[in-house]
């Protein structure tokens, strides 16, 4: 072995030892603080269960107030059908539309069903009878679902007794199949989003807090007096959190598969690559925030602003990116979370691999490289 290469080997070994020592120190910090561990590991599972059981987009038992101006057996049977539809419930009765609208304003009902006078007479004569539905449009998606469900219920209420009559006329049936997620479970959509969310929060906020704490307490100064280089400092700080984040990802996947049967249909190497690239990018962002702010309070607010809220609202987690105005779509496409979630959905649910998701993986890699470089440049050893 020649002299220069053995010297290089020694340098590298020393460097590795320093990195591992730093990583070990950081691991001790994490282990001494069970709340941090809880945030990283127990919270994702809790969130997943809460989301999985608590959030659905298919609304049911929507409360209606009924105004029956017809007062006949037919109108009463229509009300019965609405009351037992499951999708809608009759939350109350009112004498006038005005009275009913007060419960809309107070938020106790989402709609008012008005059965106008002469409803049953029109039906008996074989004419077209109208039902009126006043809906609270303030919540647009609830309003749309209420109208759709009431429309289908109203048709069922009146048409079922005349079933023989419909078979004689042509009709058109809209038939639907659902792929990848036949039961339309929201967990299938939320698991990829949650993985991104949890990783973003754990990475950015925990690294932001821990490094900012070192600055606040002055222990960063002590680190600078040691022979540790800035690249080593960054790697040593990042490693334990990469491991922690990786554990979080596995935990979410396991709970998703076990409790909600979320599948992993695509390539596992592609999944691992995406998770690792995202993790490194977000950790570097957290380090960057802490290096710039050097204060825990400011770091958390900036971290919340730059990672938590965008991952929640701009990444396509719940609200589709395609519906956003053009400038926001641009911002969304700069966020690593957007690419991570898109890649995860393809890999987990649609059975994609490197070929289909290559562009998203490339975007994640670009972010990780850029963020690490910027952080290393800002992380000056001198105290300013």
């Amino acid at each position, binding site marked *: 072995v020649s002299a220069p290469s053995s010297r290089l080997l020694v340098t590298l070994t020393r460097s590795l030892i320093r990195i591992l020592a730093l990583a070990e120190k950081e691991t001790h910090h994490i282990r001494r603080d069970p709340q941090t561990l809880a945030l990283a590991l127990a919270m994702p599972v809790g969130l997943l269960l*809460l989301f999985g059981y608590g959030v659905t987009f298919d609304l049911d*038992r929507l409360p209606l107030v009924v105004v029956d101006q017809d007062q006949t057996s037919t109108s009463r049977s229509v009300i019965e059908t609405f009351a037992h539809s499951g999708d809608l419930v009759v939350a109350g009765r009112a004498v006038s539309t005005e009275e009913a609208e007060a419960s809309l304003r107070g938020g106790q009902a989402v709609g008012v069903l008005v059965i106008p006078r002469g409803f049953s007479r029109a039906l008996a004569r074989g004419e077209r009878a109208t*039902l009126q539905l006043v809906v609270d449009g303030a919540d647009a998606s609830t309003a749309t679902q209420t109208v759709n469900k*009431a429309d289908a219920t109203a*048709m069922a209420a009146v048409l079922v007794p005349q079933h023989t009559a419909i078979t004689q006329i042509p*009709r058109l049936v809209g038939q639907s199949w659902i792929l990848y997620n036949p039961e339309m479970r929201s967990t299938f959509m939320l698991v990829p989003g949650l993985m991104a969310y949890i990783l973003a929060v754990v990475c950015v906020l925990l690294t932001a807090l821990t490094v900012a704490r070192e600055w606040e307490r002055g222990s960063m100064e002590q680190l600078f007096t040691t022979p540790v280089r800035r690249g080593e400092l960054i790697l040593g700080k990042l490693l334990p959190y990469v491991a922690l984040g990786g554990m979080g990802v596995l935990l979410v996947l396991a709970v998703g598969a076990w409790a909600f049967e979320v599948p992993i249909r695509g390539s596992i190497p592609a999944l691992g690559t995406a998770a690792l690239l995202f993790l490194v990018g977000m950790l570097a962002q957290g380090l960057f925030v802490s290096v710039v702010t050097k204060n*825990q309070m*400011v770091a958390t607010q900036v971290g919340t602003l730059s990672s938590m809220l965008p991952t929640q609202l701009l990444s396509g987690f719940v609200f589709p990116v395609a519906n956003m105005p053009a400038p926001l779509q641009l911002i969304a496409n700069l966020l690593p979370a957007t690419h991570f979630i898109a890649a995860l959905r393809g890999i987990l649910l*649609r059975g994609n691999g490197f070929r289909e998701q290559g562009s998203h993986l490339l975007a994640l890699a670009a972010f990780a490289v850029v963020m690490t470089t910027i952080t290393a440049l800002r992380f000056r050893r001198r105290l300013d």
Partner: protein
Amino acid sequence: MLPRWLVQLLAVALKEVRQTVSDRRMMALLLVAPVIQLGVFGSAVNFDVDRVPTVVVDHDHTAASRAHLEHVLADGTLRRTVETESDAAALAELDAGRAAAALIVPAGFAAALARGEAATLQVVVDGTDPNRGSIAAAAVARYGRVATRELARGAARARAGEGLGASPRADVELVPRVLYNPRLRTSRYVVPGILALLLLVVTVIVTAMGLARERETGTLEQVLVTPIGSTTLLLGKLLPYVLIGLFDFVLGLAVAAWAFDVPIRGSVGVVLLGTLAYVTCSLGIGLLISTVSLTQQQAFIGGFLFMLPALLLSGVLTPLWGIPEWLRPVTLVNPVRHYVEIVRGVLLRGATFSELQVQFAALGATAAAVLTVASWRFKRGWS
């Protein structure tokens, strides 16, 4: 002369304000950031689903199939991206994520209609986004109902024309009338929710971490040895944040009205009263969190653990009616839910105080309970 407690209260509040103002970045984060976030997130958060990319397969190739396809696509919910000859090619588009729905007209479609039978229009949707998927499926189902009515009317007319006499067919039509937001824009509903979310982020974490910092650095101890009573101390500490919360709310309301066209139909006084109760409540929660945490990091995690479920079970992002029934009672003790109902009620529906008294009572009771427990814990921990 002012009573002594008031002088002390103002002194504490002034100290708190000075401390906050001295950190410019913190001031910017407390006062300006929420408004910018409201602007950005308000325009991002949108449940309106339209232009779902759709691949079209027409196996029937008849005038009827083409006409019905045009009609289904006409309302804009589905947008045709490409037309393929085989089902397999259409499904490949879905697999790659280039389309989210496939609209298929099976062979024999027009023949079935002509024979007076049921013809089907098939739609295959990508279920990875259940909201988008169900809207696409519902659009096709709705079109089926509309077309059936049209066909029935046409058949009745045809029979009448053939001199068979009018064949009356009883039918029922549901006429919807949309109040408060006739164009059904999501932003009007979501923006007040985001406002509530941002107020929560600003108040809970800042109080929790602020007190934890004083404890970490030991300055809380110094204040506690002064003759100031602990209640006065608490009120003085919370007062500036109540004002910041109200300030953020007014600024946010202006942005909501100006940029998102959110109407202010009810009384501003009622909303402000609600905001006062809500901010008090969330500050109390922040205080409570700070009494159980030793470090800033723990305080932050505590705030986070409260905020997430509180937001999820509040109706801010997803409708309350999507929460399963066994979980709905939990939302009754959630201040975010009541506050959002108050804000939406007053702004969008012009609700009055008496129409919202349930929400006000719940919010007030929560605020009182939280503050009592928090100040009791605070005093116990430091006496």
